């Protein structure tokens, strides 16, 4: 217990040691159990950001539903976007078990206070982007989520297990699409390559800052929330995807990309200024994404009012 800031007023080192021992035994922490206030705070922060990312993540792909080239691709895309909505729901539920309310979390998203994954502030410019998002963005997300499925907090872990089992379909449909286009007409190849050029670096960035610049990582790893660091997950992602992308004949837009003596693919320097600018909404589509969410929320107001009125009337009838 070398990080005293993790022990909040009213908590004792003994409580922390007992908690740490539970983590070490591989026990899952459940909502009613004692947990450090800092553990609770970190989880609410992570899970709500994750939920917001699923919700905002519907926007770049949802924009292509009406323009899908075939009925098959359209039904697949609709199912995928529905899944993202469902994943947001699973995650809000997990955060609620820690005492955060759905309302607070949605308010934080709509007011712009809350963060979500930087990746969804990039535009989806062509149909191939839908495939590349599935292959790279969902591929990166699965690496992260598979790790989180083993996390120490029961409700988060369960949400992740469920999400991973569904997300694998997202990854595969995207890969299938890009493999087809990379072997298609010159125009299709060009479109696939162009999508890779634009999504490669954002996909690497979405796995988070380097370990040296990630202040929360120590506590998160110690408490079994994260079982791997950002750089470890990023390395796994790169090692899996680089050979596959090369195999289908695409060129990866990183002149420094090479394999080291251990066979790990090493990427060139990442433009973290861009990452932070996109996270903060100074660059990219942050304003448009929030605008779309707010509009949807406002346009749904009459539905919420109707449901509330119906529930109140039923309650009134029951009282009679």
């Amino acid at each position, binding site marked *: 217990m070398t990080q005293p800031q993790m022990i909040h007023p009213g908590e004792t080192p003994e409580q922390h040691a007992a908690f740490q021992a539970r983590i070490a035994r591989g026990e899952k922490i459940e*909502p009613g159990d004692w947990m450090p206030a800092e553990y609770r705070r970190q989880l609410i922060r992570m899970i709500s950001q994750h939920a917001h990312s699923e919700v905002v993540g519907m926007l770049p792909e949802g924009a292509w539903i009406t323009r899908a080239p075939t009925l*098959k691709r359209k039904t697949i895309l609709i199912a995928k976007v*529905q899944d993202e909505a469902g994943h947001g729901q*699973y995650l809000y539920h997990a955060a609620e078990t820690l005492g955060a*309310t759905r309302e607070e979390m949605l308010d934080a998203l709509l007011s712009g206070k809350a963060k979500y994954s930087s990746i969804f502030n990039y535009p989806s410019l062509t149909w191939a982007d839908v495939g590349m998002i599935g292959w790279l963005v969902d591929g990166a997300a699965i690496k992260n989520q598979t790790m989180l499925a083993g996390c120490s907090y029961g409700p988060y872990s369960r949400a992740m297990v469920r999400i991973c089992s569904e997300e694998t379909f997202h990854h*595969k449909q995207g890969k299938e699409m890009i493999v087809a286009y990379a072997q298609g007409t010159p125009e299709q190849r060009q479109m696939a390559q162009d999508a890779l050029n634009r999504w490669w670096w954002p996909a690497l960035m979405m796995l988070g800052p380097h370990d040296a610049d990630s202040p929360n990582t120590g506590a998160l790893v110690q408490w079994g929330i994260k079982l791997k660091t950002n750089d470890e997950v990023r390395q796994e992602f790169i090692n899996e995807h680089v*050979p596959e992308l090369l195999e289908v004949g695409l*060129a990866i837009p990183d002149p420094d990309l090479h394999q080291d003596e251990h066979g790990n693919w090493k990427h060139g320097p990442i433009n973290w200024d861009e990452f932070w600018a996109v996270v903060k909404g100074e660059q990219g589509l942050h304003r448009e994404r929030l605008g779309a969410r707010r509009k949807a929320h406002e346009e749904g107001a009459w539905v919420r009012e109707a449901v509330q009125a119906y*529930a109140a009337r039923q309650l009134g009838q029951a009282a009679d």
Partner: protein
Amino acid sequence: MMAGHDTQWPRWEVFKQDAPGRPYQAVGSVHAGDPDHALLTARNVFVRRPSAVSLWTVREADLLTATPQELEAQPEVLDTPGEAGTYHVGLKRTHRRSMTFVDLVGALEAKGPGDALRQAREQYPDALTWLVFPESAVVRTDDDPGTLESWFAPAKDKTYKQQQYYGVIGKHMGELKREGRMPQRVNEEPHIGDQKVYSHPHDKAPKVQR
């Protein structure tokens, strides 16, 4: 743990049965204004994949749940008052990775929720979480063929939501490794960057240098 200013619809715990004879499992929760709304939302959120044959929802206020650690710290939970009658019991029994919280294991007669919890703990002393709720609080889907068809069959028929539908895509990496053709180096093509016009690696041989 209640923040106390949640003005949204009540929360409902969702229990899903995957096949006849299988236990109902707690899969998560939804917010809804009334029982029908709760069931419909539960279906949309938790039955986008096979398989399910039945859903129950129970309003959060009607559930009582506790872990051993919680009962040690607050034994008075076992005195929680409420209506007498039939109570369903759910248990969490393992720390293994899972996508469900508790399995419903049966029902018992109790004087109230606290008593139901006490009996559940006596019957299943090794459980990691106990959960009880009265039969009167359960909202369930109908089990007639029409309901089963319209509520649960569509998810089953949409096989493109299953990863197996896509099979193995491209060259399987294991196959490439065995053949000694696993790409080891970046293509020698000039890198693309922002350039719009480029010659595709496919146009040159060998495609991948080893």
